[in-house]
């Protein structure tokens, strides 16, 4: 009996492993080969082409800047939202439901929503102009206003991506036993200490998942940037898209894809190392 059971789990995960191998590993290997070959022979020509492109440095810089600016803000907002909602009794579900609305909107749609607000003839300009605060409708999304463009994209990203972080953090907060906090209160710990010494360490697994997920997504940011900034704000995925779709050079697009994957993997490894989770708390 014991012998029979030992292979059942493997059999059960076999379909998903086969599925992953077919639809993930095979394309992955193909992509890597496409990236490091030219005309069927190994070559670094594609990587050189990528590195010497005028938009390469800018796209790396922009992607990292955006990730650095967006992810901490999202985590902070999500923590604040999660803690706030944990104090709410009736109506909690409704509040959570409203907060997660951006999750249901596609990236591109979110970008277009913000475009309609921020472009020259958009709502924000119309309101400011109508109130007489500005004399002329101004553009914030052009190549001449890189800082405003960066802020616009960051705000749109934060608006769109915070909900998923919040969902993960709320589920983490739900698992924190009340007894711990009560015990701390009895020993005279203030709200700050309770948050830093009890809540934060106990939601570590949730924080870790949220950070990994959000950081990986931040490195893969594209649709919002494309809608708001177009060519003015190159990011890594956008460059991969342009090389593949417009320039029709699959090799360089593949190098970009591999680069994005390596950055994402590195970020994940760093999080796994830095935010250690006790083995017994793993699922």
């Amino acid at each position: 009996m014991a012998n029979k059971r030992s292979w059942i789990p493997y059999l059960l995960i076999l379909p998903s492993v086969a599925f992953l191998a077919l639809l993930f590993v095979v394309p992955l290997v193909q992509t890597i080969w496409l990236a490091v070959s030219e005309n069927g022979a190994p070559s670094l020509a594609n990587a050189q082409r990528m590195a010497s492109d005028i938009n390469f440095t800018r796209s790396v810089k922009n992607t990292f800047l955006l990730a650095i600016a967006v992810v901490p803000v999202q985590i902070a907002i999500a923590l604040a939202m999660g803690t706030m909602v944990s104090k709410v009794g009736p109506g909690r579900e409704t509040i959570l439901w409203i907060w997660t609305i951006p999750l249901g909107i596609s990236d591109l749609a979110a970008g277009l929503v913000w475009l309609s607000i921020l472009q020259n003839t958009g709502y924000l300009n119309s309101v400011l102009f109508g109130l007489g605060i500005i004399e002329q409708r101004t553009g914030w999304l052009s190549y001449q206003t890189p800082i405003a463009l960066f802020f616009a994209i960051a705000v749109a990203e934060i608006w769109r991506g915070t909900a998923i972080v919040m969902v993960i953090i709320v589920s983490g907060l739900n698992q924190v036993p009340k007894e711990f906090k009560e015990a701390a209160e009895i020993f005279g710990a203030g709200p700050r200490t309770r948050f830093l010494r009890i809540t934060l360490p106990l939601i570590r697994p949730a924080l870790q998942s949220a950070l990994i997920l959000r950081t990986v997504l931040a490195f893969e940011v594209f649709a919002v940037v494309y809608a708001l900034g177009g060519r003015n704000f190159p990011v890594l995925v956008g460059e991969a898209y342009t090389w593949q779709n417009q320039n029709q050079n699959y090799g360089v697009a593949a190098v970009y894809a591999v680069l994005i994957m390596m950055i994402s993997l590195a970020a994940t490894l760093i999080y796994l190392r830095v935010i250690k989770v006790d083995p017994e708390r793993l699922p």
Partner: protein
Amino acid sequence: MKRIVSFGFLASTVLAFTSPVLAQTVFVSTQLRPIEEATVVREELLQDVGEIDYVVEEPPQFAVRMEAERQAGKHTVSLVGALHGELSPLADKDALEPLDDLAKKLAAGGMPQSLLDLGRLGKSTQQYIPWMQATYVMAARKEALQYLPAGADVNALNYDQLIEWGKKMQEATGQPQIGFPAGPKGLMARYFQGYFYPSFTGGVVRTFQSADAIAGWEKLQALWAYVTPNSTNYDFMQEPLAAGEVMVAWDHIARLKNAISASPDDYVVFPAPAGPKGRGYMPVIAGLAIPKGAPDKAGATKVIEHLTTPDVQLLTASRVGFFPTLNIKLPEDLDAGVALLAGAVTKTQASKDAVISLLPVGLGEKGGEFNKVYMDSFQRIVLQKEPIADVLKAQGQTMAKLMTDTKAPCWAPDAKSDGPCPVQ
């Protein structure tokens, strides 16, 4: 019993996937893609020619699809409609049926031989049948005309006058009023290949880094001071024109049509400006071709014959703004917007200093990278203000490599070359 039922399911599934695929003639097109235009094709242009499945495809996906079908040897597409430059890689791979009989018939029916010759794509047999033609023009809102510099004729502008005009408009309104489609999906690269370079240098590839080109880029920098910075976000100029964001714009006629047709009384449409070497312009030709191995050649031939009849060509012009390839006069009662556009096209073609620049040929799938050379130069010179000569030298090397890689010979207005077109 259970077994019979499941067997029945299996059989019907297999049948469902194999038999009815060939019932319709599949017509894949990279042209007339927007939903309104595709509806016109389905409901008006393709009426009465049988069961046609009109499918639209973005140019890059079109290339991928055709290549996939060719490699697999399993053809579903019977007819393709695409631009001259999109059909040329297919012809290079010998993937198109020769259409000489059709071409002969159309030549007799009034299709200019010069156009039909383009459809040979440099081969001995007819590769595609010219379907529709278009070009790029400039459009201005009428209130902009009051700022035209003294003595300037809007139908025969030169770059100095355009710059002066832009300056006056900016001074009067406080904002730059000229717009170009330099967004991610805009056709700005065609401006450089068909208008800017021919006008300033008389060439496209050979003259890429010449002294004339440097002088041209300096002019463009001067002009760009009066071009709205939002231009790098614009894909189609009809929206910013209609929204009043810009007063003057350059674009493909099909990408200006909606604004102009909606209120033809508010606009003037005129040729692009001339430079020292003349008035560059790029005719755009879309053609119809039958892929080798097409499942329904007879149906496809019927559709080509139908789309090239005078009535359907005129209907195409009035409904979607692409002009006939047949030598026929446009009717008087044409849509007012289309008539305006047609007028500008005629004026461009008739202008004494016109320099025709053909769409790039022979670049195959490197067409995108060819466009990138011009767009990168633009980004570096005009937007980032890098030294012109250095940029042109660096980009010229990229261009030269592209030409040697693809072995593409020169096309008009560059002088003919033996072998790959040189960057001098």
